[in-house]
């Protein structure tokens, strides 16, 4: 059984029909990517899974449990963490306090070992643990947002546009980190506009267009598909 199953969800922003009956799944241990242009509904899909938005119809099953009616603040303790679009670190809190917030639902005894794990993966954050997050660079903030999500020891980590607004060298670094996370056993649902990069590390991908899934396949299949090349990979 898949770790995450999204079945025929429809999501509305007021009168706007943002997600039109899409279905997809993520198996344990996979990297799955949702690609598509701005406004295709990628972020809305993630927000709906994490409970910030609600589907009008359809259902979402995570780890065997239907998420219908589960409030957003309860979903993270089920093992589902999200790195939101635009990083959204708490700018007036220190790096370490941001990480502590990531472990908000975790028992107190486990926080220090989670902190050590995150600092080992991101030594840069350890150097800056007492610094206010607002003073970090964009790349460091992205690392902090990812570290914060890892603090809840999630079964599935959802990343929303982690490469957005970063310099190319940092983009590469972030994708390397995602690959490492995957190699160490994390299951990842990745939303990206950078289709080339996302597909090159993904097991499978779904292409979203104006609220519909138009194509699906393995990362390699989609990378080599002519229509995808034309639409998303610049020829």
């Amino acid at each position, binding site marked *: 059984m898949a770790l995450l199953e999204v079945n025929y969800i429809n999501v509305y922003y007021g009168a706007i029909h943002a997600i039109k009956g899409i279905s997809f799944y993520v198996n344990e241990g996979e990297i799955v990517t949702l690609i598509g242009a701005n406004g295709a509904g990628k972020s809305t899909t993630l927000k709906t899974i*994490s*409970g*910030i938005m609600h589907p009008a119809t359809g259902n979402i099953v995570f780890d065997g449990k239907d998420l219908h009616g589960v*409030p*957003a*603040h*309860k979903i*993270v*303790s089920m093992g589902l*963490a*999200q790195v*939101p679009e*635009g990083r*959204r670190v*708490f*700018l*007036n*809190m220190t790096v370490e*306090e941001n990480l*502590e*917030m*990531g472990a*908000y*639902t975790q028992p107190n005894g486990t926080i220090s070992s989670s902190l050590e794990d995150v600092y080992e993966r991101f030594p840069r954050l350890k150097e800056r643990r007492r610094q206010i997050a*607002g003073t*970090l*660079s*964009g790349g460091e*903030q992205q690392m902090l947002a990812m570290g*914060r999500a890892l603090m*809840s020891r999630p079964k599935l980590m959802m990343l929303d546009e982690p490469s957005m*607004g970063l310099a190319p060298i940092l983009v590469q670094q972030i994708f390397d980190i995602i690959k490492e996370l995957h190699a160490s056993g994390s299951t990842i649902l990745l939303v990206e506009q950078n289709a080339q990069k996302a597909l090159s590390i993904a097991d499978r991908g779904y292409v979203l267009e104006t609220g519909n899934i138009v194509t699906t396949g393995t990362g390699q299949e989609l990378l080599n598909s002519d229509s995808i090349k034309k639409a998303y990979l610049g020829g």
Partner: protein
Amino acid sequence: MSLLDSIINGISLGSIYAIIALGYTMVYGIAKMLNFAHGDVIMVGAYVCFFAATRFGLNPLVSVLIAMVVCTLLGITIEKLAYAPLRSAPSLAVLITAIGVSYFLQNLALLLWSPNPKVFPNFFKKIADDGSELTGINLFGGSLRISYVTLVTILVCVVIMVALTVFINNGKLGKAMRACSEDKDTARLMGINVNTTISVTFAIGSGLAAIAGVLLCSAYPTLVPTTGSMPGIKAFTAAVFGGIGSVPGALLGGLTLGVIEILAKAYISTQLSDAVVFAVLIIVLLVKPSGLLGRKINEKV
């Protein structure tokens, strides 16, 4: 010594403003709303303490605790009934609701306790060896007199500020409050129950309002249903003055405002003192629109 006298009285009055301002500033920081009913919660606290102590003859400390419990419950109830349903409404609707709650509380007090002023008892006195009542201490051979109320007020303010600062900076719930004040959706993604956090903020602010009410009526013992409204507005001014959303700002704003007010009363004119206070507010906001300690959030895109 009259200057020193005025400054000490100003610090004492300012301490009361600061305690009230905390309620405004914390609620604003987290719920992004101005709770104009906060001043009237002070009045309710003072009445509850008054009746507990005079009608039921309870010990002053117990009376204050009862007032705190009642105000805490009142604050949570107001938030749940009046403000929570408006969480995604335009801020103007919330503001008008808050003014409505303020009038509701004042009129409820008129109905329950009548407009006749109550004389608040002085809890802060002791009986001297010769049987006379002492309400303060004399320094410098009697040229400077400080009442116990003044001393207790300043002390209580310091204790509250230290406790609250420790709670907000180091407590798990305090950190969650800071996270909610910055970004509610992301706080939810962390597993923080935003509604509970907002309730806790109202509870703390209202509990402190009860203490402020007792201290205020101990210093100025006439208790009427509108007792809380002017100090409420002054304390709101203090919160804006210090930088709304900032706890140290509430302290600095409260103390500054209190001292200016008393000095203006002593040296300029009793009638003009409020005008002086608000003139200083306007000047500060012209120079630094975010208030003395208010900070601009630096956002990186």
